């Protein structure tokens, strides 16, 4: 049991990357409009995040230093400051969207307008960030997020035309109703979602919070190779459910309620209850992840005391950043900005910021001063460089595609 619980950090991290509020809706939207023709992007993303999360977990375990710490050392104070600004903005936007997502999940269960839930959700979130210790927090929300496995069950219960879905998977071209522009835009958004920078910040900082040492390398790897592929499977299941239900209707998906509908169709009331609980856990977990990551990035850039291992008054600057971030997130939502649109924008900005996050990780993972004999193997380096090229292409293409397609509409 203890061994099983050791992977909850990876699961919670992956939930933030693959099935948070933006991804739940974006995966559904992708399934509805493209069937499974973009499924390959999720696979490419899972491999990429596994590769780089493994490196950052290894760096954290061996050197005791989380990723953002090293970004500044390797990029220099000035470039790292630009990176900090970009990463913080993306993380803040996502945090805001997740708080909105928690409120939207409660709206589905109560039919009370989500804006009324926003301040309550944000307050509870802040209390958890303030009071609850890292490990129980990670376990409760990592495990509760697993309720989303209900999408896998629902997909099987819907008994879809598997041959047709399989054919879509192997034909990576846009369907007749879409063009290459929107196809490219959704591909970049899905890839950026899989590789969002706060995943590595959170994962490596979490490793430090759990006091990993070189002896915990195996735990770090199990977290990576269980958590992220699981996140990818959930994300594909959400996509598949939408493909089965909405693609034949030519309906597009832009609300959380629509994302849940296939599960209700296949599994009834109980399934619907489980899926809404899963939405709640996943968005709340992602809100914790992004809330902490906002604090981690700023504190680690400036070298402040950070984290939940010490009393809050000993990390006053860190806790202030977390508190201000939650308040800013709420303020943004109370302008009635749509939480789902917020995540879509944050994904595009995230794609632009990706190279500055992943390049230093690759450099540090080859540095014997930090890692001794645990530096990257040649194969890891070949894969790492290949992914840097992919990341660079996505970063360059993101904004032009956004403008060209009007956010993929």
């Amino acid at each position, binding site marked *: 049991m203890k061994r099983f619980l050791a992977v909850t950090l990876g699961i919670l991290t992956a939930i933030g990357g693959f099935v948070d509020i933006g991804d739940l809706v974006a995966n559904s939207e992708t399934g509805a409009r493209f069937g499974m023709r973009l499924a390959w992007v999720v696979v490419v993303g899972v491999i990429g995040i596994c590769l780089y999360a493994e490196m950052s977990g290894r760096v954290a375990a061996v050197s005791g230093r989380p990723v953002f710490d090293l970004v500044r050392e390797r990029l220099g104070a000035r470039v790292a400051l630009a990176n900090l600004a970009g990463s913080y903005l993306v993380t803040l936007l996502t945090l805001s969207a997740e708080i909105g997502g928690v409120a939207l999940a409660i709206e*589905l269960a109560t*039919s009370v307008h989500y804006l009324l839930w926003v301040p309550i959700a944000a307050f509870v979130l802040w209390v958890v960030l303030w009071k609850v210790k890292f490990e129980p927090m990670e376990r409760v929300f990592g495990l509760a997020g697993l309720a989303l496995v209900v999408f896998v069950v629902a997909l099987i219960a819907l008994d879809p035309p598997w041959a047709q879905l399989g054919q879509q998977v192997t034909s990576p071209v846009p369907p007749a109703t879409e063009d290459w522009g929107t196809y490219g835009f959704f591909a970049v958004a899905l890839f950026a979602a899989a590789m969002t920078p706060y995943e590595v910040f959170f994962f490596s900082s979490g490793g430090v919070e759990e006091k990993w040492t070189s002896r915990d390398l195996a735990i770090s790897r199990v977290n990576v190779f269980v958590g992220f592929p699981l996140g990818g499977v959930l994300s594909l299941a959400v996509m598949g459910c939408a493909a089965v239900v*909405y693609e034949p209707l030519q*309906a597009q998906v832009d609300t959380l309620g629509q994302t849940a509908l296939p599960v209700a*169709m296949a599994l009834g009331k109980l*399934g619907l209850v489980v899926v809404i609980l899963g939405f709640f856990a996943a968005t709340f977990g992602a809100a914790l992840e992004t809330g902490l990551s906002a604090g981690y990035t700023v504190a680690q850039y400036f070298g402040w005391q950070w984290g939940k291992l010490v009393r809050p008054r000993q990390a006053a600057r860190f806790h202030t950043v977390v508190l201000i971030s939650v308040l800013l997130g709420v303020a943004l939502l109370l302008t009635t900005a749509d939480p789902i649109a917020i995540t879509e924008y944050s994904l595009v900005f995230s794609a632009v910021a990706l190279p500055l996050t992943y390049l230093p990780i690759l450099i540090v993972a080859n540095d014997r001063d930090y890692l001794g004999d645990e530096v990257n193997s040649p194969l890891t380096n070949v894969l790492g460089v290949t992914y840097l090229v992919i990341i660079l292409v996505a970063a360059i293409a993101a904004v032009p595609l956004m403008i060209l397609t009007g956010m993929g509409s």
Partner: protein
Amino acid sequence: MLISLGAVLLALVLLGVWPTTSGQFRSTVESSVQDAVSSVGTARTTGQTALRGNTFGAYESTVLDDTRKSVATAITDVVESEVPDQDSRRLRDEVLPLLQESARLIGDLGTGLDSDDRGLASSATDGLAEVGERLTAALEGLR
């Protein structure tokens, strides 16, 4: 610097007040019809699922609220657009009744489910299936 900024601003203003062309009108209609297709499909599926007893009240009303608002926006977009020529007028007259029919049926479905009136809910669901097909045909014609 200041001159070029002024030129950009002027261009933006002109773009805003320039009369709609028939192409723009057509694309407004297309996106409205696409939104209606999505909403009608979602409402109809929700209705069928609810009639089988597979959902609960709060969920149904949240989803139907979203679809109703989306159709209302689609109608507003078409009605508020300036109609540039005869062809556009014909297009509007063809599409607008379908959109209004969708809004009415989604409203009926909500009322039916709220008040446990299975007859009303199931006839609204059937109606949505039918209007959904006509909307889809219209959408294909517009593409």
